[in-house]
């Protein structure tokens, strides 16, 4: 197809596909993502699902969205607001009206702007006919009608025809951004291999959308986003939950351990269970337990027996796992607990993101029961942190809580494929047959005890949740011994700081403002700081992945900046944790608790005010 319109080169662009839950927006978005990735764009994506599986059709509650940010420059977030919005119905337009850039392009399926659909979306009159969207470039595409037209001779029934209209929208957007349709054609051929008529219909509709865009004059120009300057290598797209699953698989292989997952489904963590359940060929044993408690307890049983054992959940599930985690701390067994955080308290906002389980991860157990706490900070590095969590837990024989969140878990980005051989070695601390074994004797340096696995001749011993006598591990109610053991368990975690790297900053080594974040906010904080650095500001970003223990160099690092601001998606949990650890230092806070990530622009303007004062 030759292009008659002018082609404009863009640095980056944010596109949002929105429609009813049944409109296939996730698939449309994923297709656009995969095609852009193959063209070499850097990108980040974020799906935004409704909490209900089948919210009433056509209502705002039932809108499902998929946002993608592509660029030829470094892309770190799915974008604050969209340059282009595809709205498959009035509800999708209404739900996104504040998330589209002034003057941006909105493609609507005009066939759905009927009285009935407008009413369902809560509009009295069509927002396209009053001044609601003045100044925007609105493309009114008769998507339903043209899809039907294209497929009138296909022999498909009305329902199947209706289902392919997302391909029309995708065709339009492919034209707008000069993307080839090959990748999606290949995808459709594979996905519907058994239904060639469906493949043909979908491809036909996509081409119809593409040609529609090429023909109408409403689109003055099309755009290209050239390939980004990514480091050479082989890439693929990964989502955070998938990367976490793979990180554990890699760690199991490198440590010669069998991977065991005990888990109970919960949004947004279930995809880790789904991903691992697929890979029995790699020897992973997944166990869908009767509840979260059985999930963690089965994992502890497997750990006692020698597996790399993990359990995955989200906030309410972590609450249920508290007692089990306490036992693993007492028994000093390896275990990784993954918490893909969501909005809380209680059932809260299951499909939205938040960072409000930090205190729960650090302290949500009875007694003094310290746990290692780590946090991943990009969809891709979920792989590395799952791997690191496994390494620490197996080498130090103490549980690790790994915090991710809904935004990382469901977000995707291009990932330079790692080789398991490039990952650090893992040396599990296990006693072997013939050695003199005292269950609670410790390594002098790390204070880690050795575990002995059932089936090992001569090392029979008993573990349990009752206080352990130092060295022998026998039950002990001795007051001095108890105080000593509480101290040892705490010190053991502290000493892990000696084997982890110093905390790094991005930006100025010293200066006016240190921005502190942890976990999943990395993308937006990085973008905001990057922009201010370009403006010449003396600013830096310090994004934490090691939460407990903190790296050893934090105190020195903090002293190099005039002002510090801690940004997090909660009311200030990490800020308070830092205050407790570094008394005397003043930590400003920037918080947001709306179920959504920070936008880089809100951060940038806040940092500017802090820098101006």
């Amino acid at each position, binding site marked *: 197809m030759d292009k008659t319109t002018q082609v404009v080169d863009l640095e980056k662009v944010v596109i949002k596909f929105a429609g009813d839950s049944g409109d296939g927006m996730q698939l449309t978005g994923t297709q656009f993502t995969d095609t852009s990735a193959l063209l070499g764009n850097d990108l980040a994506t974020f799906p935004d699902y409704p909490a209900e599986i089948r919210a009433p059709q056509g209502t705002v509650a039932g809108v499902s969205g998929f946002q993608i940010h592509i660029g030829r420059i470094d892309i770190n977030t799915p974008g604050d607001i969209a340059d282009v919005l595809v709205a498959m119905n009035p509800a999708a337009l209404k739900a996104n009206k504040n998330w589209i850039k002034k003057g941006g392009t909105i493609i609507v399926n005009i066939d759905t702007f009927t009285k009935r659909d407008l009413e369902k979306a809560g509009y009295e009159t069509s927002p396209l006919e009053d001044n609601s969207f003045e100044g925007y470039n609105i493309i009114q595409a008769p998507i339903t009608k043209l899809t039907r037209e294209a497929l009138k001779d296909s022999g498909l029934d009305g329902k199947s025809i209706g289902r392919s209209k997302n391909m029309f929208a995708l065709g339009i957007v492919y034209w707008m951004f000069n993307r080839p349709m090959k990748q999606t054609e290949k995808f459709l051929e594979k996905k519907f291999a058994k239904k060639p008529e469906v493949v043909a219909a979908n491809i036909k509709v996509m081409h119809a959308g593409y040609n529609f865009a090429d023909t109408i004059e409403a689109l003055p120009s099309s755009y290209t986003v050239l390939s980004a300057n990514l480091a050479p290598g082989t890439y693929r797209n990964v989502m955070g939950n998938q990367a976490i699953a793979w990180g554990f698989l890699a760690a199991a292989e490198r440590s010669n351990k069998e991977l065991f997952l005990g888990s109970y489904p919960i949004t947004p963590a279930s995809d880790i269970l789904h991903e691992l359940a697929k890979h029995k060929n790699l020897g992973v044993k997944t166990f869908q337990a009767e509840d979260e408690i059985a999930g963690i307890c089965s994992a502890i049983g497997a750990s*006692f027996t020698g597996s790399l054992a993990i359990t995955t959940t989200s906030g309410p599930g972590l609450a249920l796992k508290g007692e089990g985690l306490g036992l693993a701390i007492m028994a000093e067994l390896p275990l990784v607990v993954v918490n893909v955080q969501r909005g809380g308290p209680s059932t809260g906002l299951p499909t939205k993101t938040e960072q409000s389980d930090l205190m729960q991860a650090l302290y949500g157990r009875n007694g003094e029961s310290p746990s290692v706490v780590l946090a991943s900070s990009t969809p891709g590095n979920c792989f590395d942190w799952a791997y690191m969590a496994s390494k620490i837990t197996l080498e130090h024989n103490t549980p690790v809580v790994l915090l991710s969140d809904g935004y990382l878990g469901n977000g995707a980005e291009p990932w330079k494929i790692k080789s398991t051989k490039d990952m650090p070695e893992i040396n599990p601390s296990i006693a072997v047959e013939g050695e003199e074994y005292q269950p609670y004797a410790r390594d002098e340096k790390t204070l880690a005890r050795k575990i002995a696995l059932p089936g090992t001749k001569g090392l029979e011993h008993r573990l349990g949740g009752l206080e352990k006598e130092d060295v022998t591990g026998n039950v002990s109610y001795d007051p001095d011994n108890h105080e000593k053991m509480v101290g040892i368990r705490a010190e053991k975690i502290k000493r892990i700081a000696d084997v982890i790297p110093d905390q790094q900053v991005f930006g100025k080594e010293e200066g006016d403002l240190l921005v502190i974040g942890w976990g999943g906010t990395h993308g937006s904080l990085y973008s905001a700081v990057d922009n201010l650095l370009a403006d010449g500001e003396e600013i830096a970003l310090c994004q934490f992945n090691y939460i407990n223990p903190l790296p050893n160099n934090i105190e020195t690092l903090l002293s190099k900046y005039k002002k510090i601001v801690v940004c997090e998606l909660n009311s200030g949990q990490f800020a308070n944790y830092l205050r407790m650890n570094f008394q005397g230092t003043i930590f400003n806070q920037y918080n947001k608790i709306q179920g959504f990530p920070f936008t880089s622009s809100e951060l940038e303007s806040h940092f500017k005010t802090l820098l101006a004062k």
Partner: protein
Amino acid sequence: MEHLTNKDFTSDQEVKWCPGCGDYAILRAMQKALPNLERKKEDFVFISGIGCSSRFPYYMNTYGFHTIHGRAPAFATGVKLANPNLSVWQITGDGDALAIGGNHFIHALRRNIDINILLFNNEIYGLTKGQFSPTSKKGIKTKSNPHGTTDEPFSPSDLAIGAQGSFFARVVDTNPKLMQQIFVEAESHRGTSLIEILQNCVIFNDKTFAPITAKEVKKDAQIVLEQGKPMLFGAEMNKGIVLNGFKLEVVTVGENGITEKDILVHDAKEQDPTLHAMLARMRPPEFPAALGIIRAVDRPTFDEGLLAQLEYEKENAKFNTVDELLQSGDTWEI
């Protein structure tokens, strides 16, 4: 293999149950039973929850794990799945298994994971000093219900059968020989073997099973069911169980024209659990309490199912290393 004795299974820890507690006899029976299994000592694992009974693993010189209240089935499941070669024994009390742990208990039975569950049923919470439990007889007065309980008790056998349990046996702490024999048979059964032990708590619920176990009555108050044998009992072995319509009935051989041929013959292997449930529910004074293996049927186990899937996937998958997984799907070069 070297032959082990009960001494090999005795740990160096001082046993701390109350003098006279039924748990002692169970411990001794277990220590004597295990050598008969001709397995390596290091392959036995005892997993318990919390309660007096759950202290059991500390006294066994095997691998052991005293875990948290009610959750032992989940730990045992993890152990068995991680290493199917192990002989896994779960020790639990009536509160541990049927109150806080009721959910895990029924799910273990439903899955039929290959473990043995010893349910120490003393119809009371021993460790927390005498509150009523889900198996306490209705109306008993305890500290937590001084006016008598209004709770309807659970029947462990009905729960087990309702959860599709494949093996249910009952023993009494006063019969060490029967305990030893049943422990050995439970281990050879593939699937979840549940053994209910009527255990006397001398301190908080003394003699609650006396109508079944007391010397003076036991011959008439117990029937030990044996596979393929007529259900006869009594001091003279002349009483028997028959089915009269939909109901069980006790009859005397030689009276009213009853001969041994009329007496029910025990078949623990019958898939239909109806009769098993009725037998397990029998109680004095009307009936003798049924002991021995009441139900033992063949049913696929959860662990074998999972292992078979793993084997199949390993043999038929396109790849077998993590690096191949990472490189699979859509990739591109830069």
